[in-house]
């Protein structure tokens, strides 16, 4: 099942829906969008290796769903992203305290949660969380563009876009090289990129709309993702 909404609706609002299928879609989307940022924060702030961070991230989302944390989100009190980050901090701190208690009792612990000895400020962690959130939103949007291109028989369009703007991001290939590689005229490369970028932009905004609970939060998040300084 796709995690994406058919229309521009907020799935964050649907987290507290009475409809189980709607709620399940909302949970899928939240987990898809926030799993990577949560893992990144657990690794940086708590010095976990990848496998342990992924296990703990899984526990975090399971715990959040079991305790219905996410459905308690109040849109009037700030961004959903900030709320989730705060839940994660509480969860990790509690897990850390539990780990210490077990350590003092001489038991083995599954996840050795220790605060990073490196100098990691809260601002660093917040920046990392936002950076990975941006990466997640773009990845989800790219997956949706891929599905759209496949459904519309425009695989070549998607491939040209990926070759130029994803794989060739460091040093974008020349249009003439892409034309030769895909066996299309140079003008077609420009047309494909124009089409794909426009659709990709739409998917990013749709994803943001789904991940936010109000118009003002949506605009704030759009500015955070798009509004970078030169």
């Amino acid at each position, binding site marked *: 099942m796709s995690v994406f909404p058919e229309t521009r609706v907020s799935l964050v609002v649907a987290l507290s829906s009475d409809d189980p299928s709607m709620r399940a879609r909302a949970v899928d989307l939240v987990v898809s969008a926030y799993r990577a940022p949560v893992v990144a924060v657990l690794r940086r702030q708590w010095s976990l290796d990848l496998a342990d961070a992924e296990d703990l991230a899984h526990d975090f989302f399971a715990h959040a769903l079991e305790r219905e944390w996410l459905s308690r989100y109040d849109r009037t009190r700030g961004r959903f992203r900030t709320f989730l980050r705060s839940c994660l901090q509480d969860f990790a701190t509690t897990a850390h305290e539990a780990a210490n208690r077990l350590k003092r009792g001489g038991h083995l612990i599954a996840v050795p949660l220790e605060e990073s000895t490196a100098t990691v400020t809260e601002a660093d962690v917040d920046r990392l969380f936002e950076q990975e959130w941006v990466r997640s939103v*773009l990845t989800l949007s790219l997956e949706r563009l891929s599905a759209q291109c496949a459904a519309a028989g425009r695989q070549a369009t998607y491939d040209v876009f990926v070759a130029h703007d*994803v794989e060739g991001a460091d040093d974008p290939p020349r249009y003439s090289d892409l034309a030769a590689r895909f066996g299309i005229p140079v003008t077609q490369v420009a047309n494909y990129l124009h089409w794909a970028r426009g659709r990709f932009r739409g998917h*990013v905004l749709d994803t943001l709309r789904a991940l936010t609970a109000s118009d003002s939060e949506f605009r704030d998040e759009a500015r955070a993702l798009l509004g970078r300084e030169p």
Partner: protein
Amino acid sequence: MKPLTDAAVARLRDAVDRPDAGERYEIHELLGRGGMGAVYRATDRVLRRDVALKVLTTELESGDIARRLEREARVLASLEHPGIVAIHDAGTLGDGRPFYTMRLVRGRRLDEQSKREGRGERLRRFLGVCDAVSFAHSAGVIHRDLKPANVMIGEFGEVLVLDWGVAKVAAELASAGQGAPSPAADGDTGPGVAVGTPGFMAPEQSSGAESVDGRADVFALGAMLRTLLGTEKVPPPLRAIVFRATAESASGRYPTVDALASDVRAWLDGAAVSAYAESPWERALRFYRRNSALVLLLLAYLTVRLFILWWRGV
């Protein structure tokens, strides 16, 4: 799907952000970003020249912000003055975002430029800002966000006042061609909503009062003058000008931008400044500085006369 690299993330963000400017404009680098949107360097393929293209960050911005951008374009179009950047074109991009293009100003911001110049040059630049703002006032437009960062010094030394997005416009200008007065006349800021930049905002503007008039710009210009004068030892008359321009109460300020400019010009010319009550000694010193050649000539004449009198007496 493989995780996106940092370079891919940056490129995709740029792909999402970059306006779809259609056939006419080729978009180049991002020049800056503000509360309303972004400004790009663009090439107008029809007229074959570079322009600055201002566009909203997303087409889904609130109607207020979209209207504010359109209003800013109308305000700029109505103000034809060498100190106000000229607008070339306005419309809606292929992706639905409103935009306008204006002259691409190549130069430096006033706050950057002023670090390289002496006090006299800075004051003359300041007078250029006053000239543009005074013209806008005469056309019924109050800028409301004057600060050194919103002034550019062009490559020929011309002073250009930018960023008219929160300007307050006389109702007849805002509603021109629209049939009825528009709420946009107040920059889409209702009563109680403060617009501007802290440190440059008049008290009545900070409180969101409805009765903001040209004296709010006088306050901002006074704050700008204080910034331009910096931490160096400021002569008392200039200090008095700043003090009067930034008076807490609007009625305590210069009534117009021209009156403020006139005092600054008077100081540059060595004339009396209306905001400062001189002592007789200061007046004499100023007279000497302004007429030093005449005073020295007179002194020389008197010395010679005295010498002749003394010689005859001997």
